[in-house]
């Protein structure tokens, strides 16, 4: 997608409702998984996932616990490698380039991540946001960069007077937005969010959802969520995972209103299991 092209349809880059789940259509995918398999030791957690994440869109991954959606997300920035005795087969392509060929620290700088449980470092608010800049050898005004990131994460007004206070002094929702600010500070092209609101109350959740809308002009977002209403509210495209397989992937509207697969409909309507 060229930057000048107006974003008229929210589904412009999403695959059409083809019966074959998740087959990449077109070539604009920012991030693309091709025949991805993932193993924890002998246990296969992901089966042959092929999925195209369009640029500057929000893509939601839904499915029951243990269905592999978080595992899938973690293979995208290779953070899955921190767990011993795991193995990946297949490819993940970032702008057409195999992520295994990219230096892992550079990859993670381009593909940021926010975790389920907010995990601020035991440092000051300022140092939390500045951390990614410092380790990446940022030259320039840290102060301005931190302020900019906190503003993007809609946290600036709440913390501007206590930047030197410990990050642990913030509330749960603020901590999670701090983690988003921290991830945004290095200006990632893709932002992966692993159930970012699962521990938050509805008000904090709404703040983060609003935030996602404002962010998608600047980056591509993939969000794993347990909350189907959340997927329906924020996502342009939605993928449904079940037992390590991508069952169906389409525009959010089609997934929620007219899914092609029975399993998807059962899960969406709560008849699952």
């Amino acid at each position, binding site marked *: 997608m060229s930057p000048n092209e107006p974003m008229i349809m929210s589904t412009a880059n999403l695959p059409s409702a083809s019966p074959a789940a998740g087959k990449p259509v077109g070539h604009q995918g920012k991030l693309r998984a091709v025949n991805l398999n993932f193993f924890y030791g002998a246990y296969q957690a992901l089966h042959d996932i092929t999925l195209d994440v369009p640029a500057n869109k929000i893509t939601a991954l839904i499915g029951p616990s243990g269905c592999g959606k978080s595992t899938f997300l973690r293979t995208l*920035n290779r*953070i899955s490698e*921190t767990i*011993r005795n795991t193995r990946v087969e297949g490819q993940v392509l970032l702008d057409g380039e195999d992520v295994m060929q990219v230096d892992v*620290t*550079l*990859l*993670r*700088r381009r593909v*940021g*991540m926010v*975790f389920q*449980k907010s*995990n*601020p*470092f*035991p*440092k000051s608010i300022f140092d939390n946001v500045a*951390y*990614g800049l*410092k*380790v*990446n050898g940022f030259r320039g005004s840290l102060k301005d960069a931190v302020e900019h990131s906190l503003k993007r994460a809609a946290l600036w007004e709440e913390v501007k007077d206590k930047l030197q206070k*410990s990050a*642990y002094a913030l509330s749960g929702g603020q901590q999670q937005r701090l*983690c988003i600010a*921290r*991830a945004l500070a*290095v200006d990632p092209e893709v932002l992966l969010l692993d159930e970012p609101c699962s521990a938050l109350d509805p008000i904090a959740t709404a703040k983060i959802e609003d935030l996602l809308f404002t962010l998608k002009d600047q980056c591509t977002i993939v969000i794993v969520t347990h909350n189907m209403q959340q997927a329906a509210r924020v996502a342009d495209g939605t993928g449904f995972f079940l037992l390590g397989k991508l069952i169906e992937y389409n525009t959010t509207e089609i997934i929620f209103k007219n899914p092609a697969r029975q399993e998807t409909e059962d899960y969406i309507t709560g008849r699952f299991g």
Partner: protein
Amino acid sequence: MTLRNRWRKTLSYCMLSLTGVCAVVAVSLLFLILGILVYNGWRSLDWNFFTKLPKPPGENGGGMVNAIVGSLEIVLLATMMGLPVGFMAGVYLSEFGGKTFGFLVRYMADLLNGVPSIVIGIFVWTVVVTRFHFSAIAGGVALALILIPITARSTEQFMSSVPQTLREGALALGASKWKTIATVVVPAAYRGIATGMILGVARISGETAPLLFTSLNNQFWGGGLTDQTASLPVMVYSHALSPYDDWHRQAWAAGLVLLLGVLLANVAARLILSRGIALQK
């Protein structure tokens, strides 16, 4: 039924009293030791004790300044050798240790921890002293051997207790593994690590047996690090075994100084740790 109940209550009461008495015994031992040391030693704790050399047998007075300085020297040497090695080994165990090799290192460290200190003394005597000389360095080596496994295991423990999510948070920002450890994991655990180190140093400060074979003792200022060197624990040993009343008095004083030093280090370590926990919440 009531008889049975009464029997139950009596038994419960007896057991409660027994555990209470044992708890009091356990706690009061420390105060008993401290009390006896203070009672016998405090009169000898004068300015001379900290500034004068020991007097020859038969002459009253004098002090143990050479043993105080010697102890500091030996412990400092051991700290400089033992802490970096133990710390790095602990980091390795916590962050890099593979399943088999990690297990092996951990197990060996625990075994080394259990080796009687006198055996370590004999070992260093064979390896270092027989080739060179009784020296402060040899004493430092012996104490370092005791310090390494203690530091390694405590460092590993505190680093392992840092949540994995913090490591992932740093890695996800493009930090290398080494950067993550140095800038997130170690800072998050440093209070615990420092506490473990202080306790380890306190532990070796009181060791006597390894020094008997290595730094030996000295009634005078020695000739530097390569000469035999006086230390407080060995002074306590030699003076307590001597037939002179004045030396006994000095031995008590030396024991008191040693114990106060170790107690102080312990209290400092606890304070650091508890403050750290309070801050993190």
